[in-house]
């Protein structure tokens, strides 16, 4: 009942439970962009981000009759989102349809350097020393996030962009708070390591490119 009183989204969802189509439309509008962004980050493919977002809303609507407010609505929603993303990744993996360019990197982050080098090449053509600005920086950041492990990415997105507390992230990801704390610490350290060359010098190091091209 606590969340029912404090979380306006929970109240909306309760109206959806009573077949209020307007309330559902409002929820879709509120979370649509956030879920698309999340699916871009944790989903198996950018092309599937919107489809997966629709799948999440479809599941929410199907589950409306059994919905009971036990946490913030966003926590419940992102739990569903995580499940949808994982299931989609499994399905694509089974069908061998995952595109290499869109596939998230492995947990060990071994492909991070190659990914970033490729991003820099894509952004600056054949001039690696070119200053990286604007959209190009956004692409570098996006690739940096994608280079994290799946769980680090999810924890980072929920913390950084959805402002969920450790406890809420733990509930959404079905982990302990300590595990969430460790995931976020590793994510921050990894981002620092990946992005430091760029915010220090604004350049893509030649050594890094050569090393990654050889590697």
């Amino acid at each position, binding site marked *: 009942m606590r969340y029912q009183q404090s979380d306006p989204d929970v109240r909306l969802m309760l109206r959806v439970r009573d077949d209020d*189509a307007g309330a*559902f*439309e409002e929820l*879709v*509008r509120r979370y*649509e*962009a956030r879920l*698309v*962004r999340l699916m*871009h980050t944790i989903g198996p493919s950018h092309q599937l981000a*919107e489809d997966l*977002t*629709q799948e999440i*809303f*479809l599941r929410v*609507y*199907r589950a409306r009759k059994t919905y009971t407010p036990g946490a913030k609505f966003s926590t419940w929603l992102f739990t569903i989102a995580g499940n949808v993303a994982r299931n989609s990744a499994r399905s694509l993996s089974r069908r061998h349809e995952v595109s290499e360019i869109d596939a998230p990197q492995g*947990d*060990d*982050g*071994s492909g*991070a*350097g190659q990914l970033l080098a490729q991003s820099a090449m894509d952004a600056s053509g054949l001039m690696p020393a070119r200053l990286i600005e604007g*959209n190009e*920086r*956004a*692409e570098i*950041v*996006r690739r940096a*996030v994608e*280079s*994290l*492990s799946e769980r*680090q990415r999810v924890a980072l997105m929920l*913390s*950084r*962009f959805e402002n969920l*507390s*450790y406890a809420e992230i733990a509930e959404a990801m079905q982990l302990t708070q300590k595990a969430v*704390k*460790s*995931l*976020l*610490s*590793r994510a*921050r*350290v*990894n*981002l*620092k*390591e*990946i*992005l*430091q*060359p*760029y*915010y220090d010098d604004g350049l893509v*190091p030649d*050594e*890094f490119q050569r090393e990654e091209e050889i590697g």
Partner: protein
Amino acid sequence: MSFSLLNDDTPIDPDDELLVAYVDGELDNSSRSEVEDRLLADDSFRTRLQELQRGWDMLDDFPDAAPSERLVESTLELVVADLVKGNPRPKQSFEKWRLPVLVSFLCLLAATLTLTVIYFVRDRGYRQELADLAIAESLDSYFYGHDLQLMRDLSLNESWTKMALAMKEIGDFTLTPVTIASVSIDQRESAIESLSLARRSQLDAKWNRFVRLNPADQARIRQTATAVQADPNSKQLLETMQLYAAWRETLSNELRDRIESSDISIRRDAIKEAIDLTQLAMSKRSGVKLSDETIERIGFALRRILQQRIADRDDSTLRLMGRLNSVTDKERADWIAIGAMMVSEWGRSGGRPPITRPFGERPTFERVNPLTNDELAMIELMLTDDDREVLNIVAGDPRDPMIESLTLRTWAEETVRRKIWFRPNESPKLSERYEQLDDHSREIIDLLSPNEFLERLTRPPRR
């Protein structure tokens, strides 16, 4: 420059973890104060925080998602389409349970088929038993009457037909009604239940006999039954077979063999001979069936015959009466004289005298003339219509003169036997007396105690 990222299992520097929790606001007050004290005192710790924070701050450049303008609209359309299509959960649930349900259904189907086959086989066997039971009901008929040509010949034989009628009317033979075979197989179970205990017991005995037969005999009997059922006069044919089966039991083995011979002439002669023997036997046996009224009527006729002979001054009769009157009263003398007419008959026919010596020593009576045809006609005149009907049955219609004469003499003997005033030494055996009882009397006497049973059977004969 090279680096490797921390995966989810790589140990993390406790200071990094502490600083991350600090910037995320997840530390309690005391921990936060400690961190802030260290930040003030430790340059490297502060630099580390700045590095972590700068990387985090760069996420501000993380590209915003730009969902298509129609995403909300298409999402709502998708939900509506899902609603129209119906709730997919049951479908998913069905998909989940489809295989178990299918396997269960197939198992159920297989079990049903198996049970059906078992039921069908058992039902078929049971129906075959019900069909055989109808045959077993007339087992003797089918067993001994398998020569259907002989049966047809007998049914067309006038003498045999008359004899058969006499057997049913005079003899102890009674046709057993066909109960089971007269109803369809589906109704036979209830027909069995409706049978009396005695009839059911008889049927059970016949069934056991049928079951004990070897398969070849069973097959032969089934063939006979099928042939009888196919005959246009199946009912009459089966009755003939039943009568024949009972009749042949009264005949000698030698005569049976000749009747069932394949030689037509031997068979014809044997049938004629057997019919004559049976009619004679029934003629003699018919006396015991006479009622007391008939005995009185015949007795009256016999006394008139005696008086007529005396009136006609018959020498032998007068001499006998003269001697008898000197030793006994007139009533006894009359019946002894009448009995003497029978003695003459017995001597002539070779039969056993029914009357033993009335006195302790052998009398030296003169022979009296036997009953003449006119005297027999006088007896016949005294008979009731029912008695004449019996006579017709025994002697045939028109009557066979020889059988008629023999039957009337037998009845006269029976009259003398019953009228004689002393108990004959050679009384009928107990078994004979028992057999002479009608069905009703038998049912009564069967329920008596042994002493009462004996007392009832040894009572003096009716006068």
